[in-house]
């Protein structure tokens, strides 16, 4: 492409006439160089004679730029149109000089190139004759070397389909950037002669820019087949490195020794209060709506905050890409679930899913006394999604999720003063509207606006000591981000992460219920019978802008991600001090602003190896319940912390990857129970606690080869706390020294797949009971403890096996699965339990061998 410039103007004046209006170029004409001309820059000066109508009548070369350029410029000039020049106010014929510059103008490409190779996964040989089709219909067929190429691909995320002989249609997605070539490798399973195929996930080894220093991401289909999860995709998080084994009935997520409330769980960028239902049997989202889950145990980037622990991000499936109706119905021992997704008008889709846990209601019906002995969880969850594609790379979707849990248990006793009971209900709702746009030139825009509510009710009693906590919280917020590729090696992202919550809490009863980290107590020990009451409101607001720069000056060899998050936190508490009589109380407004820099560096000195390091500052709001003037402290500051990690890893051989990460985290201003004999009013909790966690995690992962896939992960970690700066460090309640998980899955012929998971984990710390004191008033023995958390529950071992078989029936598939938990029937101790006088200690054992049969229909 060439352009011309008007360099100068000269005219001829004749006989005392005055130029009263100079001619202006109204229409420019591009010159065309003949083919074969190699030089692209030149300058030609022309003398143009303009008529009274402004048209060019004569062209004369005054300064040559070369024969070819002279001819091209002259031809183009003849097509110029000027406004008529005026001499003495009248249109006149004039001659002007005009410099025609030939300048090469670089035009940025607006499309991408898609190329790659398709290989037989087992034999690693190229597969010719495979048709690779883009969502826009364009296609290419792999050549004799298995290679293909499609040019001029529109930028954005597109669906790709692979079809061929002995190859069932497979689908995946790729993201294309204008001006770049995406070179992908697809390793696929080829069917045996006459074999019917079924859908399966493709493992793609295409280059991607990693944003998190250490993370593990698992696709939904892979996660669903992991033994011990009963097909619940999000339960794979339990088996990832860095995650401690939760106790039976806990369902809490302990990542790198952090308290469960310190780890944030996000679904499409929206924070939700929990990942699992009570008891940890199920996650709060149906598997069919989950696309992938990623765990970042520490060192996450500036886009997320309000958490001292790790980060779990769940991505949901996009219904607007569905091309046909998809439905799933599943049932097993614990619950039943259903899901349906329907495309709408070719540009969108609607999906609805739900799950209902029926163990509790069935036992209520046939064995109503069951809750006298064990807490039986009751749960449900519902998901709705509607999405539409506004343009090929622009989408709008709205999502709603609802989750409910109820756990009831009682311990009857012939003496009503010794009866114990607990009734806990936890529900939450979230809805969000999300807009996303992929500009195709490296710009990505995302805006999520959300709202929701949480309801928690807990009533617990031990004889006459009744404790109740009622929390109602509304939350609204927005997350927006804009990412742009400033340079091929530099991507900038700016965004806003905001959330406002309003909580109303009514709390009565024992000051020691619920328990908290650092409590020294034995299972079954009656709580203190000093009781208090409080009713208060908490408003917390956090609007955090952030910027992040990802610099990759050397393609995948070096990536530096530097981010900065400004985290101002404001909270208002309705009571600064406990109420005295009926006198009105003053509230309290607290403001904390944290500047949180974060950086991660990842270098790949060799193609199959990387090293990385990351560091960052983090903070989080205090728990709303801790801001009670009677039970907590309205003046609690926001706890803060720092993460430091370093790691190494790579692919020693193609299907194998190995990662090793060392970490050190520190947290301060943790809320602890006051150790003063005379605590101040409104200071039942004090921000005197410190925490630290350090250790290493290792993961050896095998991508699918010859039907096998899986991983082995091992974590060695210390999680410590000290109650005050003067105290000694002690193991925290979340310290789990060793965690070893081994997973293997194998795709057998004839639609079978089997899997095995084995876990070995250290027990959680406990404080040893060294004696007991008889309290004659309450007629109970009270334990006398030794050093805090110096004892440990026995080491845990469990092996789970999963066998599944798929049957194709017309357009649908049936799957029957058998998930056998604790296949070796190993007797694990979940908790120590004592006799009434603490002279004898036993252990509450975990589940024995438990086969769970499940059926799943999918269309």
């Amino acid at each position: 492409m060439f352009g011309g410039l008007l360099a100068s103007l000269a005219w001829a004046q004749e006989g005392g006439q005055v130029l009263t209006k100079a001619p202006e170029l109204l229409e420019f004409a591009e010159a065309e160089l003949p083919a074969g001309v190699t030089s692209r820059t030149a300058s030609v000066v022309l003398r143009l004679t303009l008529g009274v109508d402004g048209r060019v009548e004569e062209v004369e070369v005054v300064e040559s730029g070369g024969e070819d350029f002279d001819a091209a410029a002259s031809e183009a000039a003849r097509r110029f149109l000027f406004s008529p020049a005026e001499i003495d106010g009248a249109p006149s014929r004039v001659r002007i000089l005009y410099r025609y510059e030939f300048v090469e103008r670089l035009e940025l490409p607006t499309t991408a190139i898609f190329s790659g190779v398709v290989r037989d996964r087992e034999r690693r040989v190229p597969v010719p004759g495979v048709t690779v089709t883009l969502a826009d219909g364009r296609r290419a067929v792999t050549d004799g070397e298995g290679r293909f190429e499609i040019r001029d691909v529109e930028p954005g995320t597109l669906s790709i389909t692979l079809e061929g002989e002995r190859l069932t249609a497979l689908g995946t997605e790729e993201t294309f950037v204008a001006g770049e070539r995406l070179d992908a490798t697809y390793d696929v399973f080829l069917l045996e002669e006459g074999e019917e195929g079924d859908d399966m996930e493709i493992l793609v080894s295409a280059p991607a820019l990693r944003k998190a220093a250490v993370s593990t991401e698992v696709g939904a289909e892979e996660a669903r087949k992991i033994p011990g999860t009963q097909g619940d995709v999000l339960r794979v998080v339990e088996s990832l490195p860095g995650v401690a084994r939760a106790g039976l009935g806990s369902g809490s997520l302990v990542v790198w020794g952090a308290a469960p409330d310190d780890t944030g769980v996000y679904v499409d960028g929206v924070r939700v209060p929990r990942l699992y239902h009570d008891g940890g049997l199920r996650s709060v989202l149906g598997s069919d709506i989950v696309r992938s889950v990623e765990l970042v145990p520490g060192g996450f980037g500036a886009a997320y905050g309000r958490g001292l622990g790790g980060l779990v991000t769940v991505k949901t499936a996009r219904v607007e890409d569905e091309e046909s109706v998809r439905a799933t119905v599943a049932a097993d021992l614990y619950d039943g679930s259903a899901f349906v997704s329907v495309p709408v008008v070719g540009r969108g889709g609607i999906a609805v899913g739900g799950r209902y846990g029926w163990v509790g209601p069935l036992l209520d019906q046939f064995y109503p006394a069951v809750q006298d002995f064990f807490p039986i969880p009751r749960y449900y969850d519902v998901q709705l999604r509607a999405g539409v594609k506004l343009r090929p790379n622009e989408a709008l979707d709205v999502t709603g999720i609802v989750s409910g849990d109820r756990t009831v248990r009682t311990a009857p006793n012939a003496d009503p003063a010794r009866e114990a009971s607990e009734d806990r209900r936890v529900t939450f709702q979230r809805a969000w509207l999300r807009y996303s746009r992929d500009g195709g030139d490296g710009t990505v825009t995302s805006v999520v606006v959300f709202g929701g509510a949480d309801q928690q009710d807990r009533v617990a009693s031990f004889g006459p000591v009744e404790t109740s906590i009622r929390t109602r919280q509304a939350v609204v917020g927005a997350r927006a981000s804009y990412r742009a590729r400033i340079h091929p090696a530099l991507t900038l992202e700016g965004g806003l992460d905001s959330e406002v919550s309003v909580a109303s809490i009514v709390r009565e009863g024992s000051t020691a219920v619920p328990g908290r980290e650092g409590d020294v107590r034995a299972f079954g020990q009656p709580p203190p019978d000093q009781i208090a009451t409080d009713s208060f409101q908490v408003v917390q607001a956090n609007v955090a802008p952030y910027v992040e720069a990802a610099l990759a000056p050397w393609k995948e060899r070096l990536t530096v991600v530097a981010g900065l998050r400004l985290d101002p936190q404001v909270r208002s508490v309705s009571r600064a001090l406990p109420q005295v009589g009926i006198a009105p109380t003053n509230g309290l407004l607290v403001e904390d602003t944290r500047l949180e820099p974060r950086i991660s560096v990842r270098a790949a000195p060799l193609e199959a190896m990387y090293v990385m390091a990351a560091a960052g500052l983090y903070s989080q709001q205090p728990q709303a319940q801790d801001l009670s003037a009677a039970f907590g402290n309205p003046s609690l500051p926001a706890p803060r912390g720092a993460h430091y990690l370093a790691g190494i890893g790579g692919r020693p051989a193609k299907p194998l990857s190995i990662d090793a990460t060392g970490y050190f985290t520190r947290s301060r201003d943790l809320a602890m129970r006051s150790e003063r004999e005379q605590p101040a009013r409104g200071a039942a909790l004090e921000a005197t606690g410190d925490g630290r966690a350090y250790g290493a995690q290792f993961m050896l992962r095998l991508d699918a080869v010859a039907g096998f896939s899986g991983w082995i992960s091992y974590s060695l970690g210390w999680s410590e706390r000290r109650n005050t700066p003067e105290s000694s460090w002690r193991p925290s309640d979340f310290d789990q020294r060793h965690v070893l998980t081994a997973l293997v899955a194998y795709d057998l012929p004839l639609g079978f797949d089997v899997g095995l998971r084995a876990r070995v984990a250290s027990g959680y710390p406990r404080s040893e009971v060294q004696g007991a004191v008889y309290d004659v008033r309450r007629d109970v023995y009270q334990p006398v403890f030794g050093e805090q958390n110096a004892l440990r529950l026995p080491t845990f071992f469990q092996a789970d096996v999963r066998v599944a078989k798929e049957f194709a029936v017309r357009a649908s598939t049936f799957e029957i699965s058998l998930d056998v938990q604790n296949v070796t029937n190993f007797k694990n101790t979940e908790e120590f339990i004592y006799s009434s006088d603490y002279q004898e200690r036993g252990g509450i054992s975990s589940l024995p061998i438990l086969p769970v049969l499940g059926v799943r229909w999918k269309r």
Partner: protein
Amino acid sequence: MEAMRWTLCLLAGCVPELIDDTPYVDEPRVLAIRLDPPEAVPGATVRASALFADAEGLVDGDPFVWSFCVARKPLAELGPVSPRCYEPGEAWEAMDGAQGALPADGCARFGPNPPPAEAGESGGRPVDPDPSGGYYQPVVASRPAVDEEPTLAFARLRCGIPNVNQETFVAWNRAYRDNVSPMPETLSVVGEAGTVVPWEGTGDAIEVQAGATMTLEVAWPACPDSASCGDGVCSPEEDVTTCRDDCEIPTGCNGAERYVVWDTADKILRLRREALSIAWYVTGGTVAEARTGRSADDPERTSRNEWTAPSSAGEVWGAVVLRDDRGGVGYRSFRVRVRDP
């Protein structure tokens, strides 16, 4: 039931059955401590007596050193008292034998009165009451010659109620009656036909066959459910102006008394009946339940338990201890002669 337990084990884990052997007295133990009066103002004198038994039965004498513990319990301590109360030291204030004057600052140290503020800080946090609205002074019974943990008793302090206006305080003060310890009125054996045969006198022993099971029933006095002048009890609704006979010298009841409590949540005064707990102790044989009781809503004034005689002849000593939910304690003992079949 066993099948269901097994099924439930599959679902939610298994709890071991740790035998509660606290009813069985086979070594010297404190079974109860009674303080007279069971409720008093700081500075008043209280007298302590222990139900102390061993494998042979009641142990005469008072081998204990009695102390008040004046250390306040931190909120981080989830036990009943400060750990400083478990060992002799600065926290112990010795009583004069088995009696002593309650520390004068008890309501500031263990009650609703704010403790003195420390320099530069707002006033200290008062102690929270128990569900009956009570505050307690710890009493420690120890045996220095024996290497064992001390036993804890608690004297209920009459301190008033916090954070109320004068009108409410006056109403509470007028209606509140100091606690009176419950006392077993009768101990009986329930026959097969449901007949109840009282045990006459605490010294009498009854005779049973080895291995036989009998149902024991303890009864306590009936306390008025409403105010009735002349019934001998000064009820919360009465005072010296409305019923001089009952309230000139306020008299309580040795059963499940009614008392007034300040409801801190609803900010009103409520009338409540005491719940009673019964602990059963024996030196031989087995009891079906270690503890029985009646809730505050249950007007029944008896409680039963089954005792199975040992398989060999001998003499068995037993005791029944009543406790109300305001810290009052009362007890009686019994003896059984077991004969060979």
